[in-house]
């Protein structure tokens, strides 16, 4: 498993693993889509560019998720594939997905924002982990 959810009272934690920090960020984004719907039901019809910046890895990870949440909300889209590059405190990347189709995606809940609760980006036993709780 390269991503997973973990429990947090009323909300839900998203966690991604990867050989690189960027991969862990991508996998956590997939975990976030899975909060809303089964990512396998989402087709890659449109590409959206994402760019953000923050003073450290953990805030940058939260910014990445929040940038995606913004695009999901403003464009009414769901994303299923992600690619990103990290350069110091900057992140640039792409997300592929399609507009929400309630009949096909059965979206359970919308994500309001990424919190800093249990926020962590770290290299553990040779693999990167990136996690936080998202408010739904």
């Amino acid at each position: 498993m390269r991503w997973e959810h973990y429990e947090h009272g009323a909300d839900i934690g998203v966690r991604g693993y990867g050989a690189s920090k960027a991969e862990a960020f991508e996998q956590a984004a997939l975990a976030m889509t899975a909060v809303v719907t089964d990512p396998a039901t989402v087709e890659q019809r449109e590409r959206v560019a994402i760019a953000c910046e923050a003073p450290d890895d953990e805030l940058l990870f939260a910014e990445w998720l929040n940038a995606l949440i913004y695009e999901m909300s403003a464009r009414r889209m769901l994303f299923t594939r992600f690619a990103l590059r990290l350069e110091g405190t900057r992140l640039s990347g792409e997300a592929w997905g399609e507009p929400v189709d309630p009949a096909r995606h059965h979206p359970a809940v919308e994500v309001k924002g990424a919190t800093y609760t249990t926020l962590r980006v770290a290299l553990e036993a040779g693999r990167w982990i990136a996690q936080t709780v998202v408010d739904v």
Partner: protein
Amino acid sequence: MELDLFTRRSDYEWEIPQHGAMRVPALIYANAALIQDMDRKVYEQAVNVATLPGIVKASYAMPDAHWGYGFPIGGVAAFDPDAGGVISAGGVGFDISCGVRCLHTGLKRADIVKVQKELAGMLYHRVPAGVGSTGQIHLGEREMDAMLAGGAKWAVQRGWGLEADLERTEEDGQMKHARPGKVSPQAKKRQRDEMGTLGSGNHYLEVQEVTQVFDAKIAAAFGLQLGDIVVMIHCGSRGLGHQIGTEFLKKMAVTAGAHGIALPDRELACAPIDSEVGQDYLGAMRAAINCALANRQILTHLLRGVFHDILPQAEMPLLYDVSHNTCKLEEHRVDGNGATRKLYVHRKGATRAFGPGHPDIPLVFRETGQPVLIGGSMGTGSYVLAGTKESEGLAFSSACHGAGRAMSRHQALKTWQGRQVVDELAARGILIRSPSMRGIAEEAPEAYKDVSAVVDAADAAGLARKVARVEPLVCIKG
């Protein structure tokens, strides 16, 4: 949590004495069983809030408190701007001014039962709910700013409601001193097509029956009788509020150090009230309160239209509209000498509960205290309470806001199927309509704590007085 973590002040008041970096003690209002059931994180978070600069009297947690973000959900804290007090985006939450509004209908159960399916169907059809749904109203730049400054008053001026609704809404339907210019273009863009939408998660619209009356005198003053049908809406400031919360959480986390604030937890991000970030947040947050008030006002207009078409005899004045994720400037007596101080009161998952005689509640409620609307889980029950005189001395006139989850979404999804929940509730005479079966499974009634225990504790603690219980007949779920 273990009870021996606390000093018991009474059966319903449990103190965490001031220690370490705490500037004031922390107080939890609940009975022993509710405390034992609470997450240990509530203790940690109530203690953390007590360390923030300028906090007054105590850091409080309501009977429905649970693990939140920095502040516990069900947390109340007041800050003095003249004593270096702070304002916190986490202390308000992402869904700024999320709240509950309740409307009368003048109808009885028999009126509803005859048309229950048709009513559920038309409400579901006309009230946009769920992920990705959009409203009929699309706001350009100027109208967006007018809405953010005007709140429910703006909505009424545009024809979505009645003048009389405004005096039955906190702040008379318009949060003053909102600064739409401090709301980012991104937050406005998220809201452009979302006016008059319910949202998802635990947000809902319910047609309910008054099934119990606890205080006949106050119930009568509120216009509630056994068997009456009311409508409750639970929702907030939608994408706009979420975006403002997100942006200021980061701004406050990044600038805390420069303001000389040592955060025990990044999620407690805050800024001095008189700082630029603090003032910007205040202006944007107040605009988001207006967005929530306008949104609930438009939803009111939509559902009145549905009742007009199916049950034209319905008369639907507003009982009241309350918000439970806010920070508001209020005057409170705290020093024992009768003098008031102006404080910024954060209520994160807590409802304002002004008591009898309070100047900020409508004249019609001056003798009873304001209605305090507590939403339960889908298919169980909700409550109407009234603010009390003694509540001001307890937790700055605050009470609980809901049931709180007992089970994670993940666990709920493994335990129930949406269709099965819908069928079981239908067999009990409750019609659920939602675009998402998975959403229904995650919101299954048993995934929530018993709202009655929470309300009983709030009543026994004196935070608010129980007036009536209502149970759903129709529930539209996002």
